[in-house]
């Protein structure tokens, strides 16, 4: 599904990944862990196509997505969902519009958009909040908006960057359950970055510890 082949990436000549290899299969729930600055977020951004590897290649579904400092498949053509650490909900759009945007970008008809967003709102327990602006919502509600937006166009891969780090334990537990439920339902591949052992325990089918530019399987 996703493959890193000898990927190196440095920021301002400080290496973060060096000759990094990784293979993630369809439907896996991979949890990435490691100390700050070890390259967890960089891996997600490389998969998403926001960054290109300095050296090596990244393959998605067997196709070269980026190779040797060049992006071959633009982010919007990779068919991914991404839940950012700060959620990145667009403050100038309502909850409905936030979730609707991916469909709009793919020119889905208005009627279908309305129906699918309404359905998705129900699935993440946000019924009746479609007209609110994200800044008016609680942390847990915002989290679910981000999830809904990532899932709306049924991507095969979802990337999550410490999405639950700012929530209390009870909410974290509830939301990891929800993620698991949605995973069963949509059967996506999950790449999940977290510091929390608890989240890893609940979510991972496989976990990877990053250290010194390389990976150690847990």
């Amino acid at each position, binding site marked *: 599904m996703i493959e890193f082949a000898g990927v190196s990436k440095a920021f301002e000549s400080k290496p973060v990944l060096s000759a990094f290899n990784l293979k993630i299969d369809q439907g896996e729930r991979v949890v990435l862990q490691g100390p700050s600055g070890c390259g967890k977020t960089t891996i997600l951004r490389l998969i*998403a196509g926001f960054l290109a590897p300095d050296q090596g290649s990244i393959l998605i579904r067997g196709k070269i997505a980026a190779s040797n400092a060049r992006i071959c498949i633009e982010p*919007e053509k990779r068919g991914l969902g*991404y839940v950012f650490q700060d959620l990145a909900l*667009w*403050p*100038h759009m309502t909850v409905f519009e936030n979730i609707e945007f991916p469909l709009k970008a793919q020119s889905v008809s208005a009627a279908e958009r309305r129906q699918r967003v309404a359905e998705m709102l129900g699935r993440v327990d946000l019924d009746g909040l479609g007209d609110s602006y994200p800044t008016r919502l609680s942390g847990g509600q915002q989290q679910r908006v981000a999830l809904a937006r990532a899932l709306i166009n049924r991507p095969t891969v979802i990337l999550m960057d410490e999405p639950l780090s700012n929530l209390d334990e009870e909410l974290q537990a509830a939301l990891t359950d929800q993620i698991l439920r949605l995973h069963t339902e949509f059967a996506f591949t999950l790449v999940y970055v977290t510091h929390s052992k608890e989240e890893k325990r609940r979510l991972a089918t496989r976990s990877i510890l990053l250290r010194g530019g390389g990976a150690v399987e847990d």
Partner: protein
Amino acid sequence: MGRLLNVKRFTLGASAGLLALIGLLPLSVMVAYSFIADGSIGVRHYVDTLGRTRAWTLFLNSIALATFSTIVALAIGVPVAVLIAKTKMPFRRLITVCFSVPILIPPYVLATGWFEILGRDGLVSRFTSPSVGEMTSSWLFSLPGAVLVLSTAFLPVILLLSLASLRGVNPTLEDAARLFCGWPLVLKRITIPLALPGIWLSLVLVFLLAMGEFGAPSYLRLSVFPVESFTQFSAFYNAGAATAASIPMLLVVAIGLLAGSRLLREGTHYFRWAGSQVTPHHISLGRFAPLTSALVLIAALVLIVAPCAALIWRGFSGTAMNSALLQATDSIAWSLLYAGIAASGVALLGFFLAYASQRRSFAKWLWIDGLTLFLFAIPGTVIGIAAIVTWNHPLTGWLYASPAILILGFAAQYIAIGTHGIAAGLAQFSPSLEEAAEIAGAGWFRRVATILTPLSKTAITAAWLLTFIFCLRDSSLSLLLSPPGRETLTARTMTLMANGSPDVIAALCLISMLLPVIPLAIFGIAVRIVRKRA
């Protein structure tokens, strides 16, 4: 906090009092005078002035000039800002500098530059035929010409504010959209809408500045309100009529400001980067990069470099420059001195007012913000006339006849730069830093000197420089309030325009163009030296 005499409260109160004295009092006196006609109280000035169609024609002319100038500046400024902030277009830095240059130049100087190109005996006429010159000249001396000058003059305001807003957009928000669509749609649906409050604010500002501008329309003989009020006042000294005529203008300013402050309030929450470490993106333009860059550079060349070059071509001859420098040495010194004192005053007073407003020290802090912005946005002619009406009395003759009246006028008009700029600086750090010093026993002035000033020194320096530049490029206050024999360079140039030699006037304009560069250069070098040593 002692309840009786508290040094902090006294300083802040005195600052607010001073603002009232230099800003509110003159405007109130002027309005009061407008209700006195021939020794009795009444609304005759208003009936006389606003009852005439000419008053409304002028008002509409002003609105038209401001609207078109804003639209043109928007049409150029925002796309260029997007290209600079968001793409890998080559020569971005050079382009930013080019398009920012007009902020240093008084608009009437730009107009003089265009006159050298499009005027009756200008370059265009010389290289084509006198009849073409005739045409371009009549075009320049009308609304389109004034729009050309003012839109380039205020382009930097739109460009720089749009740039700041575009750069303030959290890149993660763009990333979130890039998963679903390409850059064009990301820009259209995410980046630009998020930067919109800042862009709107720049539009409101440019609209107000263009509406209040005196120098360029006066040079281009365009009948707009500030020119007419200056003419009416300086020709007839009838402050009552001048005030009455300015009322519609002041209302527009007030409405504009209300709209602007709403935009700012709504906009600020967009600008907080939620701790994101992601650096802003630069879109690759691919093979269009050189072409885009060339087009933008040509626009800069035509709009900004050309009028400046024409002035240099005309004024840089040895004799003209020599005679201009010979005549104007005093005025240059006075200009720098007045601007320097006014900028220092604005920085000092602005600091305390900014503190009062940022820390909500007064129940009425909102008034400070509102009043300073209002003073910034109203035409300089109004502030000048108000100052003359207020201080022209035997008791205040010492002030009236001295440079102080001009410096107070500058301070009143530009105090907003100090208050708003420094308030932004103070907002960057937590009040607990000051509270820690207070608990440690540091008195108010010690806290100001050792905690607040060093922490906001960038904002204070920026406010000082910006005020300094605005004072140097000011024309209406300079003309109305320069004391006898000690006038500014602008006042000298504009009084020489009647029958003065065009070469010498071009040389004088060239000097006023270069004047703000001197302190900027000194400042730049000083910063570099200090950084190197550190």
